[in-house]
């Protein structure tokens, strides 16, 4: 059976899950304080960044370091618990679908939700930039030709992180451990990004990308270069490994 058909089924399963509300609330919580404190962006002469760049980077930094990974952990909990509550997974396993395909279809759902979240954040940025501009009579809006490709890069950079979260959700069946492990992995990403081995830690990729962009647009901030080698090969290997193991482990607990 086509993986996209299964993915469509998986989307149907998360109806009425309120995940969209959580994402919208996160967007508001992120951008509202940025609008209210937009005047701080005019006082960045020591950093050497324009107010509009500062407004954009500060907001996306807040997103990438905590709320984006954390909402993705919540989404993995949603995907796993939807199956476990009322034993829906038992029915699924007794249907003629290959379990690895089902696992991958669920990962597609996770990846699409993450894309929606980044789109919401980007839309939130434009609304916030308009609001902040009206408040301070200044144009905070950056060109979509710059913002959208950057959001796209951020999304691609976060895919390895999603595979790690998905692996944890599939392989650790005790909810407190899978949630705890996912959340705890987010915290040290800032510390690890300051080391030379940052490319080994997928949870830090989105934040690293933003920090490197910060270095590009601000004159007095140290530049974090993004060397595609070894980053891309390592990221691809980590992602494939995580997806492979999660496909092998999916449904194993229910099939004992």
């Amino acid at each position, binding site marked *: 059976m086509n993986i996209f058909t299964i993915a469509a089924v998986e989307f149907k399963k998360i109806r009425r899950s*309120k995940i969209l509300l959580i994402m919208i609330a*996160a967007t508001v*919580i992120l951008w509202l304080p940025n609008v209210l404190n937009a005047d701080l962006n005019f006082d960045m002469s020591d950093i050497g960044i324009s107010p509009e760049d500062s407004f954009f980077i500060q907001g996306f930094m*807040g997103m990438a370091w905590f709320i984006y990974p954390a909402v993705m952990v919540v989404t993995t909990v949603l995907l796993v*618990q939807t199956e476990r509550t009322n034993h829906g997974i038992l029915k699924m396993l007794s249907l003629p679908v290959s379990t690895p395909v089902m696992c991958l279809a669920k990962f597609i759902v996770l990846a699409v939700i993450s894309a929606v979240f980044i789109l919401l954040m980007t839309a939130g940025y434009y609304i916030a930039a308009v609001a902040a501009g009206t408040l301070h009579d200044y144009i905070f809006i950056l060109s979509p030709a710059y913002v959208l490709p950057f959001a796209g890069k951020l999304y691609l950079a976060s895919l390895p992180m999603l595979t790690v979260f998905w692996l944890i959700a599939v392989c650790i069946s005790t909810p*407190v451990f899978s949630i705890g492990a996912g*959340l705890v992995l987010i915290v040290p990403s800032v510390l690890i990004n300051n080391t030379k081995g940052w490319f080994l830690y997928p949870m830090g990729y989105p934040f690293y990308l933003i920090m490197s962009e910060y270095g590009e647009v601000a004159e007095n901030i140290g530049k974090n270069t993004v060397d595609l080698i070894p980053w891309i090969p390592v990221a691809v290997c980590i992602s494939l490994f995580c997806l492979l193991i999660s496909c092998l482990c999916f449904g194993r607990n229910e099939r004992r």
Partner: protein
Amino acid sequence: MSFRLECKKIRRTGLAGAFIAGSIIAAALPVINTAARPDTFTSMAGSPAAVLADSNLQIISMLNLLLITAGACILYHMEYADNAIQKMQSLPIRESGLFSGKCGILLPFLVLMFVFEAASLCFCGGYWLNAGREELVEVLQTLGFTMLLTLPAAVTALVIASACRNLWTALGIGILCIFLATMLPADIFIASLFPYALPFQLLPGMGTDRVIHYCIAAVCEAAAACAAEIIYLKVRRLSA
């Protein structure tokens, strides 16, 4: 009675293991941080408590809040998952007793986390920063203050978890609250009273008046959260 019952209920949920593992991770952070760059710490101005708090306590509080949120969600998830809550509601016990039992479970775990973290910070102070007895007492006071300020977040996390049947909804709201705490401006006193923002307030360098205000606020907020839970339970029963 309800505490003993709750102790029984958390068997095989992994809660104790998760808190012990989380405590070890949180305690390991200052040790790794200080061991990796001891010179930076010894050259910093201020008392050992101030130096250690400035460099570690924010991240430790973050970990504590994440663990508390996850723990609170699990404590109520085990009631909702197989509809055990219905059985509990049909037994001759007060539903508020269930909540206090959950508090009785979560709070000792909170203390356990702080014991690990205190041991770790005292070790760092004594080993790298040559802290004497008085300075170590200051480290303990700093952590005691943070622990008191974490109480409202713990009780609030339980209130949220008790109100949400779905694990991810409670977790999502908890995560949003933690995120909101990180987004609130630190210099506005009223904003810092948000239950999830309180644990990020550091004792070293804080005026006595401010300390007293925070302590009173923490106790009041924890009590208010308990009251809110009791009211919520009454409303839920009436509207059921």
